[in-house]
């Protein structure tokens, strides 16, 4: 079994795991980080989204070895200590989650979308940009509101657009 090493939420980790191990299950079952969820197995629902070197990926269809030597951020690494990320605060304030199962992937996708967009998002831009994530509980209404608000707060707080 290969030794898979990566940085997860700032910490270096390495585990021996079968080479076909998917990143989602490497995180959940090897590292015990169960905040990343798997909803559909086919890259449709986005419950499993994490970021590798800042880019959002669906970890249910990414091999763990593809993250070898790279930096992975999961939902567990979104807050800075006790200080919640603006997207977490907005989801809570706007009631953008009900059962909470899609929520980690939803927020990881949203942060990537906001950071890449270069400016605050409109509701229509959120609806288009979040197309790869599904929610069964909320009808998306409050998630759209939360992402718009978070994007406004993040740019007001000094977020600069990433240069492509």
């Amino acid at each position, binding site marked *: 079994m290969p030794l898979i090493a990566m940085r997860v939420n700032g910490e270096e980790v390495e585990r021996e795991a079968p080479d076909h191990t998917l990143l989602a299950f490497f995180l959940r079952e090897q590292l015990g980080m169960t905040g990343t969820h798997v*909803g559909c197995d086919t890259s449709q629902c986005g419950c499993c989204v994490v970021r590798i070197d800042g880019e959002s990926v669906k970890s249910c269809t990414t091999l763990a070895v593809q993250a070898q030597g790279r930096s992975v951020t999961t939902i567990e690494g979104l807050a800075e200590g006790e200080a919640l990320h603006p997207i977490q605060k907005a989801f809570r304030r706007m009631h953008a989650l009900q059962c909470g199962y899609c929520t980690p992937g939803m927020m990881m996708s949203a942060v990537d979308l906001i950071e890449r967009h270069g400016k605050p998002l409109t509701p229509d831009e959120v609806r288009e940009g979040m197309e790869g994530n599904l929610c069964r509980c909320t009808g998306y209404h409050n998630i759209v509101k939360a992402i718009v608000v978070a994007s406004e707060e993040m740019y007001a707080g000094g977020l600069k657009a990433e240069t492509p």
Partner: protein
Amino acid sequence: MNDRVITALGNGGSPLINDRLFKAIGKPLERKEDLRLITGKGRFTDDFTFANQSWAWLVRSPYPHARIVGIDKTAALAMPGVLGVFTGADCLADGLKAIQHNPVPSTKYDVKLRGPDDTPVFAGRHFLLPVDKARYVGEALAIVIAETRDQASAAAEAVEVEYEELPWVADSQEAIKPDAPRLWDDLPSNVLVDATFGNVEETDRAFASAAHVVTFRQHVGRVTGMGLEPRAALGHYEADRDAYTLYAGSGGAVRQKKELSEVLGVDQKNIRVLSFDVGGNFGTRNRLYVESGLVLWASKKVGRPVKFRAERSESFLTDYQGRDLVTEVSLAIDKNGKFLAMRADNLSNVGSVLVSLSPLGKGSGLITGNYDIPLATLRARAVFSNTMATQAYRSSGRPEVTYAIERVVDKAARQLGIDRVELRRRNLVKREQMPYVNAVGSTYDSGEYEINMDALIQLGDFAGAEARRAEAKARGKLLGIGFVNYVESSIGTPKERVDLIVREKSVEVVIGTQPAGQGHETSFAQVTADVLNVPFENVFITMGDTDVVTAGGGTHSGRSMRHASTVIVMAAEELVALGRRMTAHLFDLPLDQVVYDDGVFRNIADETAWTWFDVAAKAATTDLPPELRGGLRVRCDNEMHTPVFPNGACMCEIEIDPETGSLEIKRYATIDDVGRCINPLIVHGQTHGGIAQGVGQAMWEGCHIDPASGQPLVGSLMDYGMPRFDNLPTFRNEIAEVLSPTNPFGVKAGGEGGTTGALAVIMSAVEDALLPVCGPIEMDMPATPLKVWTALQAAKAAPRKVKSEVTACP
């Protein structure tokens, strides 16, 4: 936008309920459950792991109907890592019983569904693994346990099942025929329910004398719950304690424990069921699944904890499914547009075994909708078929009958040439008629249907719709406007228990409901905080562990807020009495010198006062007499049968591109009378999600079965249409609080209303959009672009003159 709440003041019903003093109730407080869920610390079933756990994989039938000739485990048992392979024969040998689902709704307010010729309803036998036949594609026939999930999966491929394929039937209208392939030899046909309600003779007379008769017939198709958390179960048997522990998300752990004890033949005290965060339920997880029993039984067989986690494709095949009702309704109408009588004929497809008659029964009491129809008859039938069993799904039974009555009213309006809002207005049950007994015996507790309708007309700007239609037309688009009233019922399991425990700095509420996102930890804390006048932040709700929660009815049918608020206020009254006795003892006062006054116990002699937490702190450090030794802790049981009838109205506008058939929802507005609204943030959220699930069924969702092979054609999210970010609009919602007289807070329910009217309002809008081109067509759900485009092409090929048709009866 427009998340406004119309508030009403109520009369309470308990000395502890005083609207003017509410600090938490009615406020859009952020949810207590969110912090763990937004930081990745949720507790979903698959998040639990035992160090030495093994994995399960199910061998499932590839045929809709096949005799099991034999199952050969030899090759599988020789595979690496395999710990055991077990079949239905092994279950029988160990004396496992069939699951007792208690499928016939049985409170005195449920309609009495019976078998043909007034026989008891035959449910089939739902064994964990069958021994005789496979009755649907995906039915589990054997379970393989191995060290890893991969090994279990590989070994399952090596289990050789010899099948004898049998003729099958999936469609209820085929299954009901006398010569259809039969699923159960115990019955002369596949029909397990055939019951008629209402006054047949008088209804016939009314129809015979009516000026108009309008009939509508359609199949409300089959959908699946699609909670994003795939089903999972983790079973652990400890031989030294003879104790079974199951981690499995559900709609109520107490029920699961009881049914597991029956299946396994084990005393309930030896079983513990834990259900914490649940990644979507919508009814599909309320009933026991075979895998939950199998992992416990297999854990005992192999001496290790056993985990099962479904693939999404397994969830599509084997999650209990929803709807699947063929409905035909007829309205008899007089020359002034007044409804005289109604006939309905509903046929429910229960699948291969009877798990619940809720989808048929819940709708039966509501066939007349919001309208004052003096006479009605209903024939309610249910059939077995070679499909996955159906169960209550979001607003079980109510969207189906709402669809039927509202679509036939639209059709009547067209045929009679009466404006559809005006026709509804003429026939609505009036506020003065409440409580209103409808023609099939349901007593609507309260409601202001016409006020709802008028409020919706304002909220949705119904008056501006024609201008928007003209504007769309100028862009080459067809705009359709849908309009619907709805009334639904919340009955549910009648019993609920609560433990209220006051400690030095907190109040704990132990209760037997089981949310899957409905926010009970927040809304129940709001109620408790206000009835005891303690800070909301200091109240904590405990649910989901049967070692702590000793009784409780779970969460379904919109029952939880109503039952919880009622039993909490009852318990609080007992707690106040106990608190007075405790205070008198602790401070050495005569009992009649201690009064309770909104959160404090007061010595009337000198006005000294102690809060709940003062009393609890003192009690914790005092040697108490036996009758007070439990501290500030009460247990209260309540049984409450009387149903409530949440109601409302909704409208939507859909724009169709005639070139492509594509549909876009441009506007969607609702008014929902939920009774007392404890937390508007949560209630609006429930409405939004409910709308999405109803719209999903109307526009995209369907568990299609190939008519040639009986194979389900939906196995992943690549072939099941879901509500998505970019196909739903921003909603306009208002809550109307007409307090129910049936319970202390006046709660109705807020979880199902969004779904109840959604099927009808979408199809009302689609058909309205197509009317100028296609005439008055009736389209089966889901209204896909292909169906819409095909209808438009057919109309182009054979243009028809559209006119208002009036059908006069002979």
